């Protein structure tokens, strides 16, 4: 009897949680929709047409879906990585630089295979290097945090600028095209070194599988392994280190390595699968965007990819705004920003409401 009561309580608690989550979601969506609609109206465009074009421009054909997935892959990889650092309570804002360094390391390796021979060997080596590059860059921020006591947000931001500096220097300097100094990027990779893709839908099966693997691995790691448990313990309660005798520094570094590794992999994808060369804007801001995705999905490994997919749709679909409605496509940035702000506002409101409720109770 007691047992069945327990189950009932847990089921009803879960139902409550779901009800709360859906209520928050509806409120968030309503806030965002009204806000963006207001902006679109102010910009002098028909809001329904704008939403319609974003939708049709992102999911209107298989090719477009292919492009959406191309954006979704690096975004999801970065989001997965960030879940490790968020879990232990670290703000890995340096994820942007980690993507860049992943791309730089990838390009470094691929430059040895420019004649197109042994392409598979070079691709595997390049991806490994990309992961290592991202991880190394994250490790620097982690090391500054654990040894030097430098806040990881400042360290990460600083390292982002350094990474941007390095990539510009390489593109204008040692890796420039012969006789050319342009931010158009390095020499185009030979086709053998492009990530293979299904040309009819512009989709790279390997990229897609890597992203799916990343989700599954992250879910398993965070939920079922000791590492995941320890990250959570340390993230939710710093005293856990004493209680369970855990090495906080080690786990922080470990979380950074995972985050950086995934971000670096995203960088490798950008080089081999998207631009086929190194360009200054190689990260496409996916690192920063992934921070928003992770926050908006409430740091949930299953919701994250869904939110990432939505952001990818916005990214690809919003190009229709200038094309069809002569609107500025930066509106998609406004929608993304509004989403996060609305989510945070609803979250804050919920906490406040709970606190008031608790105060009334006592």
């Amino acid at each position: 009897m007691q047992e069945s009561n327990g189950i009932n309580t847990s089921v009803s608690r879960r139902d409550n949680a779901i009800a709360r989550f859906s209520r928050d979601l509806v409120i968030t969506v309503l806030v965002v929709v009204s806000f963006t609609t207001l902006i679109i109206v102010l910009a002098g465009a028909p809001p329904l047409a704008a939403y319609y074009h974003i939708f049709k421009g992102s999911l209107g054909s298989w090719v477009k879906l292919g492009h959406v997935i191309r954006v979704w892959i690096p975004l999801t990889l970065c989001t997965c990585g960030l879940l490790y650092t968020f879990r232990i309570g670290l703000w890995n804002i340096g994820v942007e630089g980690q993507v860049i360094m992943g791309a730089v390391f990838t390009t470094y390796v691929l430059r040895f295979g420019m004649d197109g021979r042994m392409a598979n060997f070079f691709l595997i080596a390049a991806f490994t290097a990309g992961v290592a590059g991202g991880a190394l860059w994250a490790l620097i921020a982690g090391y500054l945090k654990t040894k030097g006591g430098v806040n990881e947000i400042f360290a990460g931001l600083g390292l982002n600028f350094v990474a941007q500096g390095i990539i510009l220097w390489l593109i204008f300097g040692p890796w420039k095209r012969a006789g050319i100094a342009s931010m158009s990027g390095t020499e185009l990779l030979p086709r053998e070194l492009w990530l293979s893709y299904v040309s009819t839908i512009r989709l790279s099966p390997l990229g897609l599988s890597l992203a799916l693997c990343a989700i599954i691995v992250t879910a398993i790691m965070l939920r079922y392994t000791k590492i995941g448990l320890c990250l959570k313990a340390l993230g939710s309660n710093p005293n856990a280190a004493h209680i369970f005798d855990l090495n906080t520094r080690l786990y922080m570094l470990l979380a950074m390595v995972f985050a950086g590794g995934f971000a670096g992999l995203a960088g490798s994808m950008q080089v081999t699968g998207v631009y086929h060369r190194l360009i200054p804007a190689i990260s496409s801001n996916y690192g920063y965007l992934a921070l928003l995705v992770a926050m908006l999905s409430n740091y949930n490994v299953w919701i994250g990819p869904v939110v990432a997919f939505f952001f990818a749709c916005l990214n690809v679909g919003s190009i229709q705004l200038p094309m069809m409605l002569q609107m500025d496509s930066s509106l998609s940035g406004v929608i993304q920003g509004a989403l996060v702000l609305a989510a945070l506002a609803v979250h804050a409101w919920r906490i406040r409401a709970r606190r008031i409720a608790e105060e009334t109770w006592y």
Partner: protein
Amino acid sequence: MKRKITLLLCVFCFLFSLAIVQSGYAAAADKPFTFGLLLVGPYNDHGYSQAHYEGGEYVERTIPGTKMIYIDKVNPADRPGITIPQLVDDMVEKGAELIIANSDDMKDGIREAARMHPETDFIHISGDDVITGMAPKNLANLFGRMEYGKMMAGFVAAMTSQTGKIGYLGPLVNDETRRLASSCYLGARYAWETVLKKDPADLKFQVTWIGFWFNIPGVTADPTQVAQNFFNSGYDVVISGIDTTEAVVVANQKIKEGKEAWAIPYDYVGACEGASAVCLGVPYFNWGPGYVSFIKKSMAGTFASEWLWLSPDWKDINNIDTSTIGFARGGALSAESGIALSAFISDLGAGKLNLFTGPLFYQDGSVYLKKGAVATDKEIWYMKQLLKGMSGQSSAK
């Protein structure tokens, strides 16, 4: 958990299903010939991209039944994550039968897209894929012989300068930009030595590159800063080689401070608007005639992969229907210099004068053209260095 995801998906679908209600976008009954335009900068930049945009409008006016679709700011800094093949896919879905990529920066992307869409015709502006043999059959190259426009710019710069110090606000370094900066220098040198009969040693021609066709904060050097540095260090004429109008804007500020300053913008016929006090004129592209020629061929099914490098119409370089290169005189050009410029243009047009005639030397002293030799198209197209007499980098360090 599953329910959460389903819920999220449902809300997502609901949101967009609302929008589908609005679907009154039926295609027109008569199918027009749609052509797409990929612009590297804003369509209203008063510079390079606006010149292309107006070229597209000219096509719509001139060839009945044509329709332009365009997308501007096509560069990875303005539109992170967007690629050329992706935009081309979209334009082809919208019915584009010919697509024009207007920037050097799009070279790799447009070639990749042309291979993916063999049924669609492509024009890459300023590129050389046809010469190098890298172009697929459906990709052509188009450019104007801007070196003439730049010679005129250099000519009026030297005619006007009081200090003999001319600054060139350069974009990135490649064959095209070396060619154009050198053409400016040749025009300036001709005016200085042959028309004004001044001492060659007194002419200083400095090229400063910013790194791209326009300012990208944090990535390129700031063109406003570069232009200011020129004027603050004794340069009184700044010639712009970039897509945007910073040189003119800064010159305008400088004359308000009481300094003598002139500027020569680039690319767009209307670039001097609102700056008649400082603007000596602008060498500009008129893309209409080139576009029309290709689009007519594409409509007739006779489009071929060719490399077209169009000259000014020397009968009237400012004829919008015939001349790809023009020079619009600015309000600050003196009457005297204007007369000299007319003579200069007429000599260039009549073939009496060819500034790409040897002896000419590269910056490092090596021979570019032997004495009496006249440069071939290829020698002009592929300039390996800046010319001797110019200051500034010939390539990246």
